[in-house]
């Protein structure tokens, strides 16, 4: 394939981050077609080096950067960090390597959560990590577990219910209308409707009753919500949205399910009904014990919060057996709600205390990082990202990436959305950070002048392939690949006496769904010949740390053995 080959790779022992035969493909809807975003490229980084990845939109440079981060995981190929293979790691182990491998995105404002303060945005990675290391409180684990389970249960129960409720209301209204039409009077349990029906007429009454029926159904939903909302709030404190949704749905589903079982068995009577009642009572007792225990030990309050709902429902059964109904039953329901609210307080207080403790612990480090990137922490800590200019927000992104002491940072077009003057500030800052923390950087950009400024080695990409890999000064002095030449000619020169026009025909990129055969650049290449359509050029060495994938490079290939890498870029 175009631009394959590994001539430019350095010995495995010397490299920190290494991608080999990296391929990323995205399916096009359900058409069975595939976008060949990155097609078998190999690239490596020595510790302390900055690799510039440069090319037009759609050349696969960002996808390469993200595939190194394993978001998404590459379709094929290997990525190794410090000798450890990343592509085969399971999700949890991969997550544990994240502090080492960080990323900075193009648009700083949208990369930062607008509803959170700078203190939390920058400190969060640290706080999450501390929580991981010291073990999360059991509460949140339980919540996550229950959240997942109940989300599934709630989903399978409430989805049909949504359709059943309005249908039931309509059926009830139809039934009343047909009764009224046939007999013109109401008997038995509907006799009380006779008088209003005479006064307002049957059709109007039918409509009113239909509305009442709908409201009753809604009322049940609200009652269920009243029991369940506290769970939702607790989960919100935990910041876990799926759990919140799951628990909210779960509570209502649970209440409805138990209610239905109870009704069914009740109507059957006999031994089965007794068995169910016995079971429910047993559950109620067990859960009650659990519940009281949890009040004594708040760390278990989360799990027993669910139990609170069960207590409420099961207790209903006890009351039923005891022959209680009406007001006492209502009181039990209210008690269940009150208990939930109480639990919410206990749990949230505990979680908030934990978060405050972590936040206080993180603060000195957050302040330090802000100062390092040139932002005054006293003014910034409690502000939100949109209160900052684009350049300052990019500084915040850098601070967030740095707080975990990463080895490698992947910078995806970090200055493309910024003004020229601000761009210079951010480029200088990245250079300072690299020197100060010994970082290894992957710098992705479409502007060769910017890439040249920060890079120790530049890889030019086109349509998912590597065209040229070189030391930036060598690349600019003599671009060997026609595409590098095109990119160079497109840079706006701040000199009115230079010819500003692009010398080459610069057409659009071919579709990555069906990339050209042979060399992928041949459709735009001024030098293309027949051979370019059939043979794919391999990467070959043409000078000291200068490699090109082209059949007709501007420089002649050299056949000497590959020179030893230049080591860490200084």
């Amino acid at each position, binding site marked *: 394939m175009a631009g394959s080959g590994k001539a430019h790779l350095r010995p495995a022992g010397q490299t920190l981050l290494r991608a080999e035969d990296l391929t990323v493909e995205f399916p096009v809807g359900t058409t069975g077609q595939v976008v060949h975003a990155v097609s078998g490229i190999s690239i490596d980084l020595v510790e302390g080096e900055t690799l510039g990845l440069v090319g*037009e*939109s*759609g050349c696969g440079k960002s996808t390469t950067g993200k595939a190194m981060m394993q978001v998404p995981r590459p379709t094929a190929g290997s990525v190794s960090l410090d000798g450890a293979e990343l592509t085969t790691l399971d999700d949890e182990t991969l997550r544990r390597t994240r502090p080492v491998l960080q990323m900075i995105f193009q648009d700083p404002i949208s990369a930062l959560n607008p509803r959170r303060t700078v203190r939390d945005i920058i400190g969060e990675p640290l706080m999450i990590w501390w929580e991981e290391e010291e073990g999360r409180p059991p509460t949140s684990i339980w919540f996550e577990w229950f959240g997942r389970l109940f989300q599934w249960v709630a989903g399978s129960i409430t989805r049909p219910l949504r359709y059943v409720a309005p249908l039931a209301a309509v059926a009830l209204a139809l039934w009343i209308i047909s009764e009224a039409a046939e007999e013109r009077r109401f008997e038995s349990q509907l006799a009380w409707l006779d008088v209003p029906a005479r006064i307002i007429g049957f059709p109007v009454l039918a409509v009113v009753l239909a509305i009442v029926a709908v409201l009753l159904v809604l009322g049940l939903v609200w009652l269920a919500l009243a029991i369940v909302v506290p769970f939702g709030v607790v989960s919100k404190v935990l910041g876990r949205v799926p759990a919140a949704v799951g628990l909210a749905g779960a509570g209502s589903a649970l209440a409805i399910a138990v209610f239905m079982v109870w009704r069914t068995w009740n109507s059957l009577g006999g031994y089965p009904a007794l068995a169910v009642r016995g079971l429910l009572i047993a559950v109620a007792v067990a859960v009650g014990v659990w519940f009281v225990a949890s009040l004594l030990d708040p760390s278990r309050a989360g799990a027993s919060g669910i139990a609170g709902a069960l207590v409420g429902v099961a207790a209903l059964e006890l009351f039923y057996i005891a022959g209680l109904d009406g007001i006492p039953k209502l009181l039990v329901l209210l008690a269940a709600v009150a208990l939930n609210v109480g639990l919410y307080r206990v749990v949230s207080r505990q979680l908030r205390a934990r978060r405050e403790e972590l936040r206080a612990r993180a603060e000195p480090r957050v302040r330090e990082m802000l100062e390092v990137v040139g932002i005054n922490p006293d003014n910034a800590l409690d502000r939100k990202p949109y209160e900052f*200019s*684009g350049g300052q927000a990019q500084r915040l992104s850098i601070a967030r990436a740095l707080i975990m002491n990463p080895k490698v940072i992947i910078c995806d077009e970090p200055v493309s959305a910024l*003004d*020229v*003057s*601000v*761009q*210079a*500030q951010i*480029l*200088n800052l990245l*250079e300072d950070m690299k020197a100060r923390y010994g970082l290894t950087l992957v710098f992705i950009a*479409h*502007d*060769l*002048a*910017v890439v*040249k*400024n*920060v*890079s*120790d080695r530049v890889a030019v990409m086109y349509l998912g392939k590597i065209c040229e890999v070189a030391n*930036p*000064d060598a690349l*600019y002095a003599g671009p060997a690949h026609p595409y590098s030449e*095109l*990119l*160079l*000619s*497109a*840079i*706006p*020169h*701040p*000199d*009115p*006496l*230079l*010819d*500003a*026009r*692009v010398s080459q025909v*610069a*057409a*659009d*990129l071919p579709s990555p769904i069906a990339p050209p055969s042979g060399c992928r650049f041949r459709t735009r290449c001024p030098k293309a010949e027949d051979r370019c359509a059939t043979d794919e050029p391999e990467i070959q060495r043409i000078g000291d740390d200068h490699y090109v994938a082209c059949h007709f490079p501007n420089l002649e290939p050299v056949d000497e053995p590959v020179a030893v890498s230049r080591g860490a870029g200084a």
Partner: protein
Amino acid sequence: MTAVEPVAAPDGRDERPVLQVENLRTEFATPAGPLVAVDGVSFSLDRGKALGIVGESGSGKSVTARSVMRLLPKSNVSSTGRVLLNGVDVMGMSDAELRAIWGPEVSMVFQDPLGSLNPVMRIGQQVAEGLRVHHGVSKKEARDTALTLLRSVGIPSPEARIDEYPHQLSGGMRQRVVIAIALACGPKLLIADEPTTALDVTVQAQILDLLQDQQRDRFMPLILITHDLGVVAGRTDEVIVMYAGRIMERAPTTVLFRDMRMPYTEALFRSIPKIEYPSHTRLAIIPGRPPNMVDPPQGCKFADRCRYAQERCVEEEPELTPASRADHVYRCFYPVGTPEGDEALARNRASGRVDGDGELVHLAAPSGG
């Protein structure tokens, strides 16, 4: 092809400037008080010329263009001054009159091509819309003209593309469609507001070439707004550098780049990473941020970020002064490349405000003593 050579107007053409802006001032009402986004901007633009307006975000360049177009909302904006478009005052026009000039007289290309196209309308219709409204041509005729326009802005096989939707096109192609729309009614003035900022360098070069071709072929004046001095360098006849809503320097492009006087222009120029520099060259930066225009500083607005600034700059705002030639004006007491400027820089270096590399160390403006 270097800077655009002045093209002689064909005989019988109106020789008055197409656009004359006099003392334009635009204020936004904000909760914190009136924000003067554009203050006392005057310039004129002749037929067939290209004017570049350069400045950082918030310098007032886009607001200037929108004030000229009268595109700003009426509720919280007040614009004063005179804007003459072919001798007609735009400032006093009613909404109906404005709608009549948007398209045939003046049109605009915006930064984000996806945001300025209607996502649910075929591109051919969008190009033809203005023709149908302003020139009252038939649907068939409008479609034919749209085809010609799409071809002239370099869209390959326009017959196939004309019925596509914006999302089916690449960023560069979309911007070409936006340009076709702007050119549809044959405007007498085209304003391009950061037309390439959202695009790749290669596509940027193509779009700028296209604008330049159209500007020459149609003998149409063009205002090119950008934050990048590199973009205006080979493609405009004259450049205005704006900062804090003011014109800081105005000069013919070749003169500006050869003989810039304004420290702000110099700072913008120095911050561009140049391809000739070896890698890891430390870039000169403009420290700090533009001033808060609700409560702007008293003296020169650039003083606190300027490496030449002296006490006088903080107390007194310089007027636009002509340099060696009348069409080159700047707003500075200690201009770059003059004995005064060199002396000011030397003084700042001695006081430690500027370091050995000529970079500003202390952000605060020089104070008395």
